[in-house]
């Protein structure tokens, strides 16, 4: 079986009949089994996927296959799929099964995607290494001694190791882009509100977005085009019509690109990451792009602001996991307080508890103004700054991560060091703008690096077109 990394190629072969969905599903099932040690999948829907493959093959044959007919997709295990277990990689949801499918999933299924399983991640999407899963860490397929990044580590690795064609993840502070960078795949975080959050387990509601992992920006555009759009079940989903992203991919000639000068002077930034970023900018200049360095005055505040606000929301969003109505309940629950305390003490992992405590603290009487309100104000400044820069420039470019994937357990004992991994990714979430991590080749350790592109709200089309241009015309020359 050919290794398909472009859906256009795959569709052509499906249409010609040189491959069919059954073969594809068997191929991926074999690979999942062969790479089980990566721990990317928490559950594989083998029987269902085979059955669905037959149905889709019949449709393709009849000439009425959907736009995703033949695309085999894995779901991060914080996205609801009706009748299937949903754990958020936490013990606290127990044997919980979702009563409904996320809007994004519904829309993929309506276009004949085949869902092959649910993917490991950091518990409740909290983490940057996928070491916070109650079901064990996910390993980077490029070097199994290294982390895949997080929180959507399983989703990144599943695409990296070709255990499925594409996957969905969620991005609250970089949880799609950072693992995409560590694993050498394309990871897209859409504009806030572009994809309905209905059916996504909430971590931080005003940041969370579902987005795809693919090998090519073109396929990210296709998946977004299908998933995006207004949804009666999510009043924060944007009403703005969905642009034909797949038709906007052609790079329209040299544009204006901004980069953050002081981001490249950050202490923990790997020299090679900096050089590769600057080389990219030089090449763009050579190609006629107008490249401007701007100073980002709030760069030291992005991570603290993000953590104050996201944990505040998380502390409230995770209140519902209390052992009363569904999921795990401690065996030592004998009355109301013991039900709550023991269930949550035993059911949540350490990082989740840390963030619930932090969020509870910043919302508490006497601290609200000092932390939560202030962080809201800083968020506004960061958003205004970002939009202002993007007003004058088509894209903003910066590294996705300060360095390539690190060793397992490297940051496990130092939460602050782990939080700083998000320094380049949280800006897009704070500002609500779309961002994508584009693979730019491997570093001296032969580990993948990603370059991040940010764009104006709802301009995912041009942003992905530029990403494609980077991959095909800029990085390929290095």
């Amino acid at each position: 079986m050919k290794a398909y990394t472009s859906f256009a190629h795959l569709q052509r072969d499906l249409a010609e009949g040189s491959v069919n969905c059954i073969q594809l599903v068997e191929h991926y099932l074999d690979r999942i089994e062969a790479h089980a040690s990566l721990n990317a999948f928490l559950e594989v829907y083998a029987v269902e996927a085979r059955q669905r493959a037959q149905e889709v093959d019949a449709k393709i044959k009849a000439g009425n296959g959907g736009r995703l007919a033949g695309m085999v997709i894995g779901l991060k295990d914080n996205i609801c799929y009706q009748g299937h277990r949903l754990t958020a990689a936490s013990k606290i949801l127990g044997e919980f099964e979702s009563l409904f499918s996320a809007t994004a999933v519904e829309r993929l299924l309506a276009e004949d995607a085949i869902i092959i399983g649910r993917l490991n991640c950091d518990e409740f999407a909290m983490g940057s290494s996928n070491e916070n899963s109650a079901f064990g860490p996910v390993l980077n397929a490029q070097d199994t001694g290294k982390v895949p990044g997080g929180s959507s580590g399983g989703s990144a690795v599943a695409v990296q190791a070709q255990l499925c064609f594409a996957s969905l993840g969620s991005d609250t502070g970089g949880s799609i882009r950072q693992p995409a960078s560590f694993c050498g795949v394309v990871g897209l975080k859409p504009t806030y509100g572009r994809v309905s959050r209905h059916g996504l387990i909430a971590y931080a509601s005003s940041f969370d977005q579902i987005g795809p992992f693919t090998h090519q920006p073109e396929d990210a555009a296709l998946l977004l085009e299908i998933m995006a759009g207004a949804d009666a079940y999510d009043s924060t989903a944007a009403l703005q019509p969905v642009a034909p992203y797949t038709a906007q991919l052609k790079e329209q000639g040299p544009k204006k690109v901004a980069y953050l000068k002081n981001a490249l002077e950050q202490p923990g930034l790997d020299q090679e990451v900096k050089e590769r970023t600057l080389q990219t900018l030089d090449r763009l200049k050579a190609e006629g792009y107008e490249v401007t360095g701007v100073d980002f005055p709030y760069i030291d505040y992005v991570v603290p602001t993000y953590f104050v606000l996201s944990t505040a929301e998380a502390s409230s969003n995770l209140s519902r996991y209390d052992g009363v109505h569904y999921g795990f309940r401690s065996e030592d629950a004998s009355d109301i307080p013991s039900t709550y305390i023991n269930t949550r003490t035993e059911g949540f992992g350490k990082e989740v508890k840390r963030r619930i405590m932090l969020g509870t603290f910043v919302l508490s009487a006497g601290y609200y103004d000092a932390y939560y309100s202030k962080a809201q104000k800083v968020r506004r400044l960061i958003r205004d700054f970002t939009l202002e820069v993007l007003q004058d420039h088509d894209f903003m470019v910066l590294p996705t991560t300060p360095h390539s994937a690190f060793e397992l357990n490297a940051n496990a004992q130092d939460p602050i060091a782990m939080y700083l991994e998000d320094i380049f990714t949280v800006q897009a979430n704070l500002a609500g703008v779309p961002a994508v991590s584009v693979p730019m080749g491997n570093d001296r350790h032969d580990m993948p690096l990603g370059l991040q592109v940010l764009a104006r709200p709802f301009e995912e089309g041009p942003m992905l077109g530029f990403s494609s241009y980077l991959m095909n015309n800029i990085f390929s020359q290095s």
Partner: protein
Amino acid sequence: MENALDKYECVVGLEVHAQLQTSSKAYSSDPNEYDAAPNHNVSAITLGHPGTLPRFNSRTMEYALRLGIACKSDIREWNEFARKNYFYPDLPKGYQITQDTTPICTGGHIAIKPKGGAEKNIRLQRIHMEEDSGKSIHDQDPFNSLVDLNRAGVPLLEIVTEPDLRSADDAYAYLTEVRKLVRYLDVCDGNMEEGSMRCDANVSVRLKGSETFGRRVEVKNMNSMRNVRDAIEYEMKRQVELIENGETVVQETRGFDASRGITLSQRTKEAANDYRYFPEPDLQPIRIKQEMIEEVRKNLPPLPSELFDRYTKEMGLSEYDAGILTDSKPIALYFEALTQHTKNFKAAANWLMGEVKGYLNDRAMGIEDFPVAPQAIAEIIELIDTGKVSNAIAAQKIFPALTEAPDQSPKAIAESNNWIQESDDGTLKEYVQAALDKYPEKVAEYKGGKKSLVGMFMGEVMKMSRGKADPKKANQMVREMLENA
């Protein structure tokens, strides 16, 4: 003690929760029904399942606007929602979606007429939208508490007064008005016994004439208006007693025990509860446009206070009558319809409060089910006013016949039963002359000064006319003809 009590006044602020009669819940499409089987109206949203988000029911806002406009509150254009965080088994999400810093209505007032006191305005602090919790049931299973989530997510309006009430009677009068208002506006059925209208009271006492407030106690668990009155009365006595004994009132939450008529300290944990309010990130703020407000204003039903004023000032009815007529919206609407057909407002009020209410009371029936149309009642009044029938015939004969055959006109009923009275002067004169001719000696006695004989002649006239003579006219004619005889 009684004397000590006289030195103090109590200061009360009330928080009323009105459950809205919307057909679905505040943030989901689950039906909003009072008597569904337990845990029947519970979708994934109500259950707070992972991945669910609230969907705002704009009816909640419309109902809030009705009440806010009726109370002359300021309506906020930009409405945000907030989360109030606390853990309880009947609160599936672990937070309640409410409004914190931006209530939909601020200010406004509700006029009350306390027993034996003058009318006064109770100022409102705010009205805001929120969702109800489920119900915890602790007394049905010896080992477990049960939770019914049908109520979880039902829309509520919380109506908070300024501390403007000065007695238990004030509170009773206020609740009477609120209940009347929400019923008139069709936003809530106002049933405190079933919990669709609930009330918490903040009660403090102070020496009369004092400008500062005493330490307040919040009283909960009052499931009738009478309970509210009794609880406040008890609380006032309790607090005055404490102060008179040199003790201090503790700021706390107390529950009312209706069977013993006393309040008992509940967990003081309430005071320490930190609800960690913050803006609800799952709902977009709602902008209320001026046109929307005008639309609701235009469709507002008549308000009881407006009707009361009109009945007393324009129709000349007594405050007592106006009070009864406006007490319930269906009665008021019937009266409104009735006065479209008759200008004899006093008679209309009397008929409605007399014969019609009597009929309804005998049958434990609401006026909604009363078979007779207002036009027909107006026609009876017309028959009386034109002297065609007497009051007695109308009440004792025509009205009962009409309730049996509501499709017929009262006039037709009276005619077919030969109940139209004879007020025709010629006929009447013949009867009177005949009576005088029959008893010449009595005529002489009358002339001699025995004026009471009028009654005897009247009886004779009525007998001859088989009761159809217009008594007023006949009486007048008998006197005239006796004088001239």
